[in-house]
């Protein structure tokens, strides 16, 4: 492996034959994990579809009166941008510019914090207005069957997504430290790449949550 002379040889686990096999395995493993994550959310999307179908009018009304469009839209831009910075971080990590990659990951982390901050403001508003799931629902403006169901789904879906954001931020933070230490290069960037995949999935799910909860 001649091109690796500049930095320490990347760690190759004993049971793999070469780096390529190890990278492919890691990547495929991550994609399989992402597939299972997609199906985890599918349970919720199915519940959403059914209840939206049954209570279409109430859901639209609840979405209009119950959630803040500006917050959802801002958060969409925030997450898209954070995805860009993560993609760029991987790009520069591959080029061996670890410090720049770490800085970009730092920006992504800040954007992640911004996302959670806006979400927290929204949650506080919902608590204040009584727009809460199930038996806690006291929002007077939207009544009728399915009204509390919208907020049940809203809280479970955004809550689970929020947990994924936190998990993703943890992983990105670890990668930022490793990038800062110049651990990645043209031959060894699989860890930061699969961490990025996870963050992009978080973005992907939000891309669907945004129209379903805020727009329609």
């Amino acid at each position, binding site marked *: 492996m001649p091109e690796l002379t500049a930095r320490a040889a990347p760690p190759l686990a004993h049971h793999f034959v070469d780096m390529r096999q190890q990278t492919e395995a890691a990547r495929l493993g991550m*994609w399989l994990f*992402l*597939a299972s994550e997609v199906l985890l959310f599918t349970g919720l999307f199915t519940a959403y579809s059914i209840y939206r179908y049954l209570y279409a009018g109430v859901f639209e009304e609840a979405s209009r009166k119950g959630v803040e469009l500006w917050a959802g839209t801002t958060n969409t831009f925030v997450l*898209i941008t954070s*995805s860009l910075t993560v*993609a760029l971080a991987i790009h*520069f990590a591959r080029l061996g510019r670890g410090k720049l990659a770490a800085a970009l990951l730092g920006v992504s982390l800040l954007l992640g914090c911004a996302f959670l901050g806006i979400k927290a403001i929204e949650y506080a508003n919902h608590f204040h207005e009584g727009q809460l799931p199930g038996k806690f629902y006291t929002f007077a403006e939207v009544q009728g069957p399915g009204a509390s169901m919208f907020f049940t789904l809203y809280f479970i879906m955004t809550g689970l997504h929020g947990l994924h954001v936190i998990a993703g931020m943890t992983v990105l933070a670890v990668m930022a430290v490793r990038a800062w230490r110049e651990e990645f290069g043209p031959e060894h960037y699989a860890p930061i790449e699969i961490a990025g995949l996870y963050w992009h999935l978080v*973005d992907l799910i939000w891309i*669907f949550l945004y129209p379903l909860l805020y727009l329609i």
Partner: protein
Amino acid sequence: MPNGEHQTALEPHHGAGRYVAVWVALCALTVGTLLASRLSLGPPWHLLVALAIAAAKAGLVALFFMHLWDQPGVNRLVFATSLVFVALLIGLVLLDSATRFPLANPPNERTLRFEPPSFETHVQPGEREQGEPGAIGRPPARE
């Protein structure tokens, strides 16, 4: 020694400009979906438009940010398979709700649509005119 599957060349490495272009497209689509929602297209179009735009955005993220465009087929296959099962679950469960005996759905604004014939055949107006309400014990006079 790995077998044939690992013999692909190093994935192409594109410039940073490509990511920025995708980001611009994503932002534009977000603005687009926001505007479309203001148009009040009415059901079901507002839903379809919003979901189509979301799917386009998701496609961009998956293909370029997540490099599915460049990577070996198996990763694409994994992702596509998961989407097949997403469609399967949502589709068949929705189909059930839409074609059920209407009263077997919870009371809702849509109870009356998609009435299966079985429900229509229940009791026609006028059939019970001969008897007391819910005439019991005697078949309604008919034909």
